[in-house]
């Protein structure tokens, strides 16, 4: 399969601080890829570069062959690359339903040449009804139909994440970037989310996620990329990453206790 997203020798520096150094990887169409690494490894920075919120100091990100460096975030979304956010994934003062309606912004534009005029003379009725039906379907799909009338800001953390996913899916992306989607979720919520990610892939959407929850990452990913101090230190399927010495060192350090802990992780049967 061909690469849908290519990160080509991307570097990001904030003054003297190197947040990302020479990052280079591809994501192929239809894959579920995880980007992991200790806190401060540059994962979210990498996300921000890919979605246009940060300009790289060097290198380029290509999405389906288009260079993203000169594009604004909303233009990148229109190319079919959507994202969710780590903390604030909703429009807090609107209802869950209206959140998704805001997310369907691009869908309202396609068939209309003068949507603003249509709104003023009240001709937008048909396309509005179509959008409302789409919003209902999306909420149903992520399992939030019963919350449709509630203020998004008042939802539980895990549910806000689901709203964020519905918002991203509303843009009809070809690829979805999820920034720590299950942090703050309990085990059963995480399981639901894992199956949601798989369903997203079944819709033909490529998924790249940043996540700290290792069991979840190992379970869902086809391939894992490990970042430390802004560099890619390992890459491969979950089994290989689990036993990679460089990864263990990055996560646990080099002390005696760390080596013991690493041994326990690798051979849980002996512990």
């Amino acid at each position: 399969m061909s690469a849908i997203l290519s990160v080509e020798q991307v570097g990001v520096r904030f003054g003297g601080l190197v947040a990302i150094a020479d990052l280079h990887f591809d994501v192929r169409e239809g894959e579920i890829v995880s980007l992991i690494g200790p806190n401060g490894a540059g994962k979210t920075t990498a996300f921000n570069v890919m979605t246009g919120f940060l300009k790289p100091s060097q290198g380029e990100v290509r999405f389906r062959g288009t260079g993203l460096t000169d594009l604004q975030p909303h233009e990148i979304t229109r190319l079919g690359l959507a994202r969710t956010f780590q903390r604030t994934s909703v429009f807090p003062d609107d209802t869950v339903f209206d959140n998704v309606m805001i997310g369907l912004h691009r869908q309202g534009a396609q068939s209309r040449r003068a949507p603003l005029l249509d709104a003023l003379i009240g001709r937008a009725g048909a396309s509005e009804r179509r959008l409302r039906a789409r919003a209902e379907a999306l909420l149903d799909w992520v399992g939030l139909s019963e919350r449709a009338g509630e203020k998004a800001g008042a939802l539980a953390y895990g549910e806000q994440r689901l709203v964020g996913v519905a918002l991203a899916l509303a843009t009809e992306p070809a690829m979805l970037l999820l920034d720590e989607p299950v942090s703050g979720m309990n085990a059963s919520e995480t399981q639901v989310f894992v199956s949601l990610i798989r369903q997203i892939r079944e819709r033909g959407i490529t998924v790249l996620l940043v996540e700290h929850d290792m069991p979840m990452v190992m379970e869902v990913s086809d391939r894992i990329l490990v970042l430390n101090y802004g560099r890619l230190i390992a890459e491969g399927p979950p089994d290989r990453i689990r036993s990679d010495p460089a990864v263990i060192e990055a996560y646990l350090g080099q002390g005696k206790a760390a080596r013991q802990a690493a041994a326990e992780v690798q051979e849980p049967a002996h512990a």
Partner: protein
Amino acid sequence: MSRLLPLALLTSLVALPLALGSNPYLLNALITTGILTIAAMSLNLLLGFTGQLSLGHIAFFGIGAYVSALTSLGFDVEIGFGTRIVHEPWPAAVGFLLAILAAGACGYLIGRLSFRVRGAYFVIVTVSFAEVVRLVALNWVELTQGPLALTNIPVIALGAPGLGSWTLKTKLQNYYLVLAVGTLCYVIIARLVGSRFGRAMRGLKENESLALSVGINAARTLTVATVISAAMAGAAGSLYAHYLRIIDPDVFQFATTVTIVIMVVAGGKGTLMGPVVGGLIFGLLPVVLRPVMAPEAQWMIYGIVLIAILFVMPKGIVPGIAGLFARLRAARAVPVLEASPAVPR
């Protein structure tokens, strides 16, 4: 409910002159209040729905007033290099349309800037813009008469070829003109806010990064909102010029901007009815107070009323009352749901 209330208000405003008779003092107060309320509605579109505070909103109002006045008065002005621009007077109704266009064009410039500068910087840009425009009006005496004021501004005449024209001379006629323009502005804002464009504005205000990530173009949305807002303020300015028939650079007074902001904030920014309610209260308060107290005391009452409103209802009158109704409804619903006797609160 949300549709009935504005309709009821509109009906009573239409009927009001019948009840009052043609009391010129009250009608005058209602007309100026109405004009300021239109300005407040236009500011609310920016402040309430995009979250951008324009503290120079009076600039658009004043530009509308001057453009409209100059279009209908005509002018003869030298612009350097020996070139003179001579403009013969056009009908005031044309001035009204040009005022909307000119103010909208200025709104476009400020809106493009707002793409780069937000928050406090946007406030500074708008304040500076208003001050620059005021200084132009004050010092370009050949065009604007400076502090001597533009006088004898013709009144607006509505008409169509073949039907004859209808000159808006009386206060009553002006009252209905202002009411009609105000209603039109209200409907336009209501339509916008309920549309896809309104959702884009709300999205940008609530969570800009997320709004960008769902494909909303921040620059375009904010620019369009500023253009529409400025054009409405320009329309209000034009009404003001043709009603008072005299304008001087004092229309750019910062105090007027503050009054408009107070109307929006006290009434409830980000609500359709907020600026209307706020506008009526703070526009008519001086009328109510004038017979009973001295002007200095009036201003103190003005301040006390504002503080009291924001103390009791921090989000403004309209959201405050809506919240009160919601709580009442919830309180009534609880005993029905639960069999146990409700604890009085």
